[in-house]
């Protein structure tokens, strides 16, 4: 029936009748995986008791091991570790369903390449919310943008699921972990396949839920549970913005379908307050989900989750949903120069801000977390200046190299944890001061992470070079000749603002190279700061973990071929991604530049690229010259930072400021006004106890009258009779 209905509605689309008609299976596979793994998790949980050796090995209740896999499958460890029940089934089902989705996505991609697709292929499944004027269908929309996102999500997810087999192998919650991860992929695919804002919002909230569940995966430790709550609550603040934007779109355009909204945006004034407000609310939603200023604070804390989660959700996929949303809504943002410039400025400031914090973090995952915030800032620069393809391009390459960095960091933590477990050391396995010289033990991880470091720093020909370069070039070029360059933003000319954005982007690029090189030097180079006994226990992680890392390393190396710039056309076909996404964002991108494609001169482009590369090389060189891994001492013996260093290490005290400015006043209001005043004072005392007191008073009076003396009762009867009779008589 589903087939018949969708055929009736979209029967003449070139994709109808091809494998793309099965696209509804894309999210169904992970959903099935969620149910199977969830059921296995529930079954196995019933058997976890004091007799289960897995429980006695549960190391997650003490803080030092907060983020490390429970135990490890190799090494001289002599603990009796039982594999979690049904582990082998889960190991097949969990990654298997994602692989099925990925294979189907690949087949659909092949089908799409074979035909000319100029309009989205929409499949309607059922009427979801038919209320009054609001008609929402449960429908999927497949176009070139969705396709790219589906390939990234399913592809990277497959790799990270495989990695998780090794990383989470001995965790008692193995099945639970995979069921959450499967559910996440389901919601993420729902998000990118939705054909209207409301269905997108379902996915948007769903991935938040999974993020919450996975950040607090080791919830026995209060820190982790708190981090999960923080991620959830901060995201909710942003979601209010998205919700308001949806309300405004429906109130003014009468629809929430992407195609219908795109067709009717012309009814709103270009650059008017209405479309600007809608866009700013949409972007506020993105700042929550994609961790931009001022709502980025949840992402660094979210590192409390298992490392594969950080790689998948908090680097490669979920946090990029905001970028996807803006590209998906590009028909709105291209109508509002002010909102677009706001996006670019917030992205640029965030990119620099987060990069400065990343420079002084010691926790390897915190460095990567702030790096993610910074790179997301780049993506927002791209979509903000109207280079939507560049934003998606960086989203793709970032998924490769940041996924790789997190997985590599996961391998390092895994190995550190194994070594500490071997020696009985309770130091922090994530602190770079405790590492050093790990290149000898983990050559594969070391090599792959250097590839990713070159990629993120922007060294040609690695993936990040092309994507970051296309963003910065777009910012520079659009400052000169575009709708944005001619607009005014907060009284400043758009031209100057975009040049400022470009400068901030360059500065952040320098810092990116510095902090990534610092991470590599402190982790893999110099002398090892672990004891000899611990060093002997360090080994490369098992193949399930190194395999995905190597695949991502290859992708980080060649990812740039997705969209080669004109100047690098000797390497292959130029602008593949530009061409691919043209049906979706081509019109709005050209509208941004007054209908003409910008053709910068060869010399300018060379100069821009030269600058970017010089800055990246300079960053790496500065880090190598300035930093002395040999002089580091382990965390326990490290001196405290002072001055600016301390400010950076303490993340500009933003959490403390939010605590004092927002959280504390809310708590105080809740406690003193709402709880003690309203709840206890008015509701409890006035209403509840007050009505009881009135009843008690009336009862007291009644009790005095009913004194047990029948004479008084008789008088009452007689007087009552007289009163009644006289009323009837003299009426």
């Amino acid at each position: 029936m589903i087939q018949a209905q969708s055929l009736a509605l979209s029967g003449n689309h070139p994709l109808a009748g091809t494998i793309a008609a099965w696209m509804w299976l894309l999210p169904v596979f992970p959903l099935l995986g969620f149910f199977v793994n969830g059921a296995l998790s529930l079954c196995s949980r019933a058997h976890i008791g004091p007799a289960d050796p897995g429980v006695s090995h549960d190391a997650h209740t003490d803080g030092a091991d907060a983020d490390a896999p429970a135990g490890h499958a190799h090494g001289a460890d002599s603990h009796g570790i039982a594999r979690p029940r049904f582990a082998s089934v889960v190991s097949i089902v969990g990654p298997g369903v994602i692989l099925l989705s990925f294979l189907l996505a690949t087949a659909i991609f092949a089908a799409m390449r074979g035909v000319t697709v100029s309009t989205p292929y929409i499949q309607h499944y059922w009427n979801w919310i038919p209320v009054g004027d609001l008609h929402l269908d449960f429908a999927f929309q497949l176009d070139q943008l969705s396709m790219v996102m589906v390939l990234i999500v399913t592809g990277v997810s497959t790799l990270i699921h495989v990695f998780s087999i090794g990383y989470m192998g001995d965790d008692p919650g193995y099945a639970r972990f995979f069921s959450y991860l499967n559910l996440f992929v389901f919601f993420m695919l729902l998000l990118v396949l939705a054909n209207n804002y409301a269905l997108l919002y379902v996915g948007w909230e769903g991935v938040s839920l999974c993020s919450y569940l996975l950040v607090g995966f080791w919830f026995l430790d209060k820190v982790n549970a708190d981090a999960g709550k923080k991620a959830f609550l901060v995201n909710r603040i942003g979601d209010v913005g998205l919700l308001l934007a949806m309300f405004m779109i429906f109130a003014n355009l009468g629809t929430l379908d992407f195609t219908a909204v795109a067709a009717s945006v012309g009814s709103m004034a270009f650059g008017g307050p209405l479309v600007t407000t809608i866009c700013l609310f949409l972007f506020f939603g993105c700042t929550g989900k994609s961790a931009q200023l001022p709502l980025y604070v949840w992402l660094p804390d979210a590192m409390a989750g298992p490392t594969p989660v950080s790689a998948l959700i908090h680097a490669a996929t979920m946090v990029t949903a905001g970028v996807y949303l803006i590209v998906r809504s590009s028909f709105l943002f291209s109508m509002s120069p002010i909102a677009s410039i706001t996006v670019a400025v917030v992205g640029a400031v965030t990119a620099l801000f987060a990069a400065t914090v990343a420079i002084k973090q010691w926790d390897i995952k915190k460095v990567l977390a702030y790096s993610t915030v910074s790179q997301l800032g780049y993506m927002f620069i791209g979509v903000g200046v109207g280079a939507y393809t560049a934003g998606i391009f960086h989203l793709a390459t970032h998924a490769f190299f940041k996924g790789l960095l997190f997985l590599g960091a996961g391998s390092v933590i895994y190995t550190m944890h194994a070594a500490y477990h071997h020696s009985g050391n309770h130091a922090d396995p994530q602190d770079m001061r405790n590492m050093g010289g790990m290149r000898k033990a983990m050559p594969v991880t070391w090599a792959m992470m250097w590839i990713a470091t070159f990629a993120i720093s922007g060294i040609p020909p690695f993936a990040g070079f092309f994507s970051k370069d296309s963003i910065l070039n777009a910012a520079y070029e659009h400052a000169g000749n575009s709708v944005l360059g001619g607009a005014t933003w907060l009284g400043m000319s758009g031209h100057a603002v975009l040049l400022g954005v470009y400068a901030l982007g360059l500065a952040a690029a320098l810092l990116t190279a510095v902090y990534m090189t610092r991470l590599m030097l402190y982790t893999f180079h110099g002398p090892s700061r672990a004891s000899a006994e611990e060093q002997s226990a360090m080994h490369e992680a098992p193949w399930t973990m190194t395999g995905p890392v190597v695949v991502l390393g290859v992708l980080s190396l060649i990812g740039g071929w997705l969209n080669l710039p004109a100047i690098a056309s000797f390497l292959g076909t130029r602008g593949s991604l530009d061409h691919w996404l043209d049906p979706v964002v081509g019109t709005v991108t050209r509208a941004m530049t007054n209908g003409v494609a910008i053709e910068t001169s060869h010399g300018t482009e060379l100069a821009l690229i030269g600058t970017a590369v010089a800055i990246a090389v300079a960053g790496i060189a500065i880090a190598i010259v300035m930093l002395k891994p040999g002089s580091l001492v382990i965390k326990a013996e490290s001196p405290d930072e002072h001055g600016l260093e301390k400010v950076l290490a303490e993340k500009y005290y933003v959490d403390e400021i939010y605590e004092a400015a927002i959280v504390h006043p809310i708590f105080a209001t809740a406690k003193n006004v709402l709880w003690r005043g309203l709840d206890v004072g008015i509701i409890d005392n006035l209403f509840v106890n007050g009505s009881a007191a009135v009843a008690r008073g009336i009862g007291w009076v009644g009790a005095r009258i009913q004194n047990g003396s029948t004479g008084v009762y008789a008088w009452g009867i007689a007087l009552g009779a007289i009163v009644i009779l006289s009323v009837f008589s003299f009426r």
Partner: protein
Amino acid sequence: MLAESLGLSAILFVIGVIGVLTRRNAIIIFLCVELMLNAVNLTFVALSRYYGMGGQVFVLFVMTVAAAEAAVGLAIIISIFRHKQTVDLRNINVMKG
């Protein structure tokens, strides 16, 4: 004739009410209640002359119920006396809230 009959009935009834309200001895009060009942009976009989036999039939019912009530009431009073060694209502105030 009717006016006199009703007047006598009213006087008897008021005497009964005043007795119930002012006296303290349970037996006396009980008698006063009987007096009120009989005052009402007198009213029924007097009015039956003008409104048919229904009133006199009702008097028979009242007398029957009054007899039953007298039996029960006296039994209660005897119980109270056995319990409290008095029938003075001032000493019987257990029915308070």
